[in-house]
């Protein structure tokens, strides 16, 4: 069954792409998402995220760390929102730092939400009920 790009899944578990260069944080966010019954692919960079998005058509949401080497979460967000193929996918940014300018910049660029790390299950439930079914 074909999955609709972005937002709601049309069948099966929603597929979330988690992007974080920290192996600890990838493990935590992946487990938080899986415990909420989402299918998760976790990658360690924006570059890998874009490669995967080019190959898989069923990603329903992207949750990415802000601060990553080579390509920040903000840069990944921009690339997603500039792409006609990808721009419908909701993107959520995570950061361990509460920097108001950073938050507003991401939201202005089209991020759906900005979460402070460490991410809690209640953060994920709140997000996913808004963007995923």
């Amino acid at each position, binding site marked *: 069954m074909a999955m609709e790009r972005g937002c709601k899944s049309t069948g099966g578990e929603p597929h979330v792409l988690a992007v974080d*260069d*920290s*192996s*600890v*944080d990838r*493990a*935590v966010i992946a*487990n*938080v998402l*899986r*415990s909420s019954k989402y299918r998760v692919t976790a990658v360690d960079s924006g570059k890998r995220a874009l490669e995967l998005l080019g190959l898989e058509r069923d990603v329903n949401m992207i949750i990415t760390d802000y*601060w990553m*080497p080579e390509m920040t979460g903000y840069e990944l967000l921009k690339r997603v929102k500039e792409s006609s193929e990808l721009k419908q996918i909701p993107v959520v940014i995570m950061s*361990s730092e509460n920097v108001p300018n950073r938050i507003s910049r991401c939201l202005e660029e089209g991020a759906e939400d900005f979460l402070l*790390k*460490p991410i*809690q*299950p209640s953060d994920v439930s709140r997000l996913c009920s808004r963007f995923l079914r």
Partner: protein
Amino acid sequence: MEVAHLQRRFIDLTTTLFQQGILDNQFIQLQQLQDESNPNFVHEVVSLFFQDSEKLLNELSRILDHQIVDFKIVDAHVHQFKGSSASIGAQRIKDVCIAFRSCCEENNRDGCIRCLQQVKQEYCLVKSNLEDLFRLEKQILAAGGSIPTMQ
């Protein structure tokens, strides 16, 4: 009864770790994420933390050993260490990393070296205590008991 004794030791150790600020509530959050479908989750995440931390600490030692220091790189490593410490609930390590980042902002090599020593000490403390905790868990399960849940 051996199981009861082991469980008591487990509770006492965990309580001490929280009272001394070595661990915070985030560690409990990790324990609550562990279930039958992922029974080794805490152990796996903590093992990843140990692996990453040791690489970061070695790299920080190497960089700060030189007279000329790229403080942006040091700051990036400390930022990462602060993040992963916060993710497993290693509160005191996280707090030292905050001070460490201030030294980076000031381009203060001596301050960074002091912070590095402190963060290494805190890391050793967390590592040895968590290893004791995991050992107790194994002993409790081997003796047929269940792991007490902390609130």
